């Protein structure tokens, strides 16, 4: 596989189960021929599928699932302020729009429990999740204090 963003390869090398899953292979079939290889957004969309359709089907969180959440949050913490023109910024954008946001949406549609990832999210990750909540006007479970959400609704 050829990756447009070197951090994507690190992600896949770190999680062998994800690297072999059909979701990634399907995404590669569609986006793999792009100039420079498959983009990080397509990889994170596939990761969303892998987490929600495979890992999160188990009641108990596996080590792999927890490691994925921690990996994502660490990257978000490190690259949140990077310019979107950089590889770091691109990777961070993919994490936000194609992973965190997807998990929130799937929680709202009943296909994922956002509480699985929430304990592993730190400030920067929660910051984006809250921004998506504010944009849509929907409150993610456990993300907001009541008073904080009330203030958002008043503004």
């Amino acid at each position, binding site marked *: 596989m050829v990756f447009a963003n070197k951090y994507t390869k690190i992600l896949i090398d770190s999680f062998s189960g994800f690297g072999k899953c059909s979701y990634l292979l*399907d995404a590669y079939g*569609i*986006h793999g021929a792009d100039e420079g290889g498959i983009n990080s957004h397509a990889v994170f969309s596939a990761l969303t599928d892998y987490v929600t359709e495979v890992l999160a089907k188990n009641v108990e969180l596996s080590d792999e699932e927890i490691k994925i959440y921690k990996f994502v949050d660490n990257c978000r913490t490190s690259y949140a302020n990077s310019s979107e023109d950089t590889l770091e910024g691109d990777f961070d954008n993919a994490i936000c*729009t194609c992973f965190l946001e997807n998990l929130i949406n799937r929680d709202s549609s009943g296909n994922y429990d956002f509480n699985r990832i929430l304990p592993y999210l730190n400030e920067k990750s929660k910051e984006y999740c809250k921004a*998506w909540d504010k*944009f*849509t*006007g*929907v409150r993610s479970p456990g993300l907001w204090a009541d008073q904080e959400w009330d203030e958002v609704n008043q503004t």
Partner: protein
Amino acid sequence: MFAPIRATKDSVTGYFEKDNVAYLKHCERLGIQPDYTKPLFAAPMLDKIVMSPIPDTLGETVAVTALTAATKPVLFAGKQVFKTGAKLFAGEAAGAKVAGVAVESGMHKGGNLGKVGAGYGGGSSVIKQANSQDRLQLEKLSTQLRQQANWVNPSEISNPKLKNIVDDLYRPNAKIGSGSTADAVRIELKIDNLKVGGKSHKIKAENSIRSITDILENDLLSAHDRMIAENVRLDLLDYLGEKLWYSQTNTPKF
């Protein structure tokens, strides 16, 4: 109840409020459950109208269904929009115009199906000469309907890949706009430097368009799934260029 009207490439397919027999047969033929209450019913028909080739020449008889009331901007009122959309196909709302539409109903069986010029004689539908303004109105309404997410219900999608994509693109029960990726991109393009959480959604939108296109081209989809895929794709594509923008806080510009 609705009865289908038919069309060729020069006219449209839709439903008029007349009787349910033909509609039920139509559903049976497609293997779908009849449902008159959901905008899913209206949306694909509207799309077909918009997609049907309409001559540019002013005054030429073309298939146009326009609804004056429905073309007013309706912000944050998806249900209302779809109710109106359903009325559009009932052909009885004030201001509705139908021209060049061949009709098959209990009253008009065998009536010049598919030919431009055949009209529906019941209700308040009338044959009118369409002009570019009608087409614009129709385009507005069609876009408006697509930008409301009420017609999207991921749980009713049977293709798993499509379901996951739609899941990722829409936030159910969104209170502002449709809570969609397409909305996020529309905001980005409309208001300088206003990105949700500071993050652009363009790449996500572009990836989704390609993924949906791949499904449309390579997967065997039910009629329902195909309708969802086509309209979600069109909603995403609407962010490009100077398309209409209804579902957020901006005043629509026509």
